């Protein structure tokens, strides 16, 4: 082939190499993109002390671990088990690193959810899960602090009242700051990837 053609060929190869290198560099060095919604809270996550079947539990008890806060109730047949199952799968995906993660379920139905009932319910999903409850005032205070909406409303005579509630998972990092929110329906793979990042950094 002619010398110009040869030069053109080498330039083409060079350009291709640059593109490939650039793409690889971008993949390797770009900042991690969280799946969950990132929050930059200036204040540490508010501490609380609520009652579990094994005694009082405070958020500060778990400083150094990553805490997942979920507000729900044991009477909820669909949304709550669905979410807790996703967290159970997340723990499985994390393998050994699951020891760094603590799920706390806070009941939005303190009237019907006793600490014992909560314990049996959450531990059905994972032995490390903790369920807590408190007085109406205590629950209302923590929910407000974490921006969680919940509302009792009439069901049927058979169901009794039902509680609408924000079904997100709030992620508190090792330093005690709210870092992420996982919307309802976030798959375990996404949660595990985000938590893995928080564990390693």
């Amino acid at each position, binding site marked *: 082939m002619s010398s110009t053609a040869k030069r053109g060929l080498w330039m083409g190869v060079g350009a291709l190499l640059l593109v490939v290198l650039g793409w690889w560099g971008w993949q390797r060095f770009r900042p991690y993109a969280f799946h969950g919604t990132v929050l930059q809270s200036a204040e540490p996550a508010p501490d609380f002390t609520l009652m579990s079947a094994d005694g009082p539990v405070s958020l500060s008890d778990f400083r150094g671990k990553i805490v997942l806060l979920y507000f729900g109730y044991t009477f909820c047949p669909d*949304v709550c*088990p669905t979410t807790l199952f996703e967290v159970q799968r997340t723990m499985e995906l994390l393998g050994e690193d699951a020891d760094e993660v603590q799920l706390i379920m806070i009941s939005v139905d303190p009237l019907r959810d006793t600490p014992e009932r909560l314990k*049996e319910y959450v531990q059905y999903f994972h032995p490390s899960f903790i369920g807590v409850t408190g007085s109406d005032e205590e629950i209302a205070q923590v929910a407000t602090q974490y921006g969680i909406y919940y509302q009792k409303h009439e069901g049927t005579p058979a169901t009794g009242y039902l509680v609408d509630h924000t079904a997100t998972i709030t992620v508190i990092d090792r330093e005690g700051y709210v870092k992420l929110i996982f919307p309802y329906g976030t798959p375990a793979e996404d949660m595990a990837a985000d938590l893995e990042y928080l564990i390693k950094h």
Partner: protein
Amino acid sequence: MTRRAFALFLLVGAWLALTLAACQKAQGPNIEISDAWGRPSPKVATAGAFYMKIRNTGSEDDALIGGESPACGTVELHESFKTPEGAMGMRPVEGGKIVIPAGETVELKMGGLHIMCIDKKVDFKPGTTVQLTLHFEKSGDIPVELEIRQPMK
């Protein structure tokens, strides 16, 4: 007419009658239930949810109007939904029935329509089955055997 001819005549007549009867049956709804399952849960969880696919291969609409199970005090039809505040809620289905249009499949699944097992009487253990009788507006009672298992992922 000979005896043989007469016998043949009867046979053809009977076949015709049966075929016509079968044709009649094809009119109306035809409900098929598949992939019926419930999540494992301990007795302390007094409400459970059942999910399934309901297919109507017939020529008329039908509707699921209720159900019964020895494992549940009461069976009701509910759906999960997102409230205006962005919270998740649950409510009985509108009109108390789930319409299964002719030729379509309605899926009862997590986060949506489901059959609620209220006042659950037993542990739902994985690998076991639960008997459920579904009541349909036109098709009447249809028995279903639900598999207790983890959600497929």
